[in-house]
């Protein structure tokens, strides 16, 4: 087989009978998570500090960029492990194939990495700043309004591109009925934003920001629940193959894990806990964000595995 599998959808892994395992699920989760971090920190950078004298906003700090850098790199590692022809990976960068999702992904990464690295360079961690004097000089630009807003815009753009990309990767690559829904993209994008918000909520040192992020995450979770409902209704009321695919999650072998872990543990429980927290009924904890992250990763696992169990026709 030629290494052209990287640049042509006609030779995508599934057509070769190559089953997708945990690597793709992990990549989709970490990609969506990084996208969420990028969009949120981009919005925070564009808005700037809320009031003069505010001690700063953790969302735009280098901490989240470092976490994003680690997450997307781990995700790329998972994807690389899944590739059948590792030595030919460089070919993704010598050809631009507009019809190939894998090629698109490679180019989006060229947008994501610089944004993350710039975010770190403008606000370097102390240990790094002390060792590299050039970085300390660079950090001066962080005070510049135009740089801050420009980086914010780039961050939002890179985040949206990455989020939409991980969202439509399954539909684009896999000719499977469970994945052939226009709602899968938005669902993954919102889920990525939600996991990003959950992590930032957990990591932020500012009570005011934590409160705001919890409220935002509640909104995102509610939208995600609505998208899941629409996605399943859409599949169930479509062609026979789609309805069959939907049955995998509505009575079939993936039902219990989907409804219990993804919907119950990963969405409804944290929504209830965070709603009570925001209302001041219960003390803030890190539990709800952890549940959101668990739900986010299991969502990818279920959809990757259930999708491969769905077929257009029973032979």
């Amino acid at each position: 087989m030629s290494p052209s599998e990287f640049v042509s959808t006609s030779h995508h892994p599934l057509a070769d009978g190559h089953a997708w395992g945990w690597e793709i699920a992990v990549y989709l989760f970490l990609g969506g998570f990084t996208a969420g971090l990028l969009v949120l920190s981009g919005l925070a950078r564009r808005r700037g500090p809320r009031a003069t004298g505010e001690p700063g906003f953790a969302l735009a700090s280098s901490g989240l960029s470092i976490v994003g850098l680690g997450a997307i790199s781990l995700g790329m590692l998972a994807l690389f492990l899944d590739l059948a022809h590792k030595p030919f990976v460089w070919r993704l960068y010598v050809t631009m194939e507009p019809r190939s999702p894998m090629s698109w992904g490679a180019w989006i990464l060229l947008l994501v990495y610089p944004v993350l690295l710039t975010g770190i360079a403008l606000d370097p961690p102390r240990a790094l700043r002390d060792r590299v004097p050039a970085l300390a000089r660079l950090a001066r630009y962080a005070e510049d309004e135009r740089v801050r807003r420009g980086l914010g815009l780039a961050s939002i753009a890179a985040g949206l591109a990455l989020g939409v990309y991980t969202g439509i990767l399954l539909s684009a690559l896999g000719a499977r009925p469970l994945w052939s829904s226009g709602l899968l993209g938005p669902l993954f994008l919102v889920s990525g934003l939600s996991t990003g918000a959950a992590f930032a909520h957990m990591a932020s040192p500012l009570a005011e920001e934590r409160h705001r992020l919890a409220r935002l995450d509640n909104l995102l979770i509610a939208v995600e629940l609505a998208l899941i409902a629409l996605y399943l209704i859409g599949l169930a009321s479509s062609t026979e193959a789609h309805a069959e695919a939907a049955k995998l999650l509505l009575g079939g072998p993936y039902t219990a894990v989907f409804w219990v872990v993804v919907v119950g543990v990963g969405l409804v429980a944290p929504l209830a806990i965070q709603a009570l927290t925001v209302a001041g009924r219960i003390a803030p904890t890190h539990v709800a964000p952890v549940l959101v992250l668990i739900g986010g990763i299991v969502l990818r696992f279920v959809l990757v595995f259930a999708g491969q169990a769905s077929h257009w026709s029973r032979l």
Partner: protein
Amino acid sequence: MERIVVTRDVMEDPAGPPPPGPRPYTNPYLAGVGLGLVLLAAFVLVGRGLGASGAFNSLVAWLTSLVAPDYAKDNPFLGNYLNGDDHPLKAWLVFELVGVAIGALVSGLLARRVVRTIERGPRISIAGRLALAFLGGALMAFGAAIARGCTSGQALTGGAMLNLGSWVFMLALFAGAYATAWFLRKEWR
């Protein structure tokens, strides 16, 4: 842009009132009736009771099968939890125990009883308490495997079904616990 302040502030979330202490526990009879109704629901809906130790067996069987699949399948104890084509964790008790964690968490949060802490008597060291917790867990794993169930699966479920073996088990459990209590009085009181 201001520099990010990394010190953790102690300010409460703005909408939250000052946190009151943990609320008192529910009346034991009331909690017991609630528990009994949950147990009854399990009987009526699925025809089986509650449990806990079985979920640990499924978990250990699955983890062992990841490391040594053949050994786990041939093991007379773990093999029971690995038959069938389904994932070993797709078991009634595993899903029930995930629910237990969520239910306990919600109850604890509502009563402001979720605290990172180590429950121990006034005189025992932290390391001592943790060593005993580990040892007690390991002992109970043997007991539950031999008795075919634990406090939930045998005493509670079997007790309500008037199961002969469960009542023998329950009496033995209380006898064993009261006999041990005297030896560990310094650790708990």
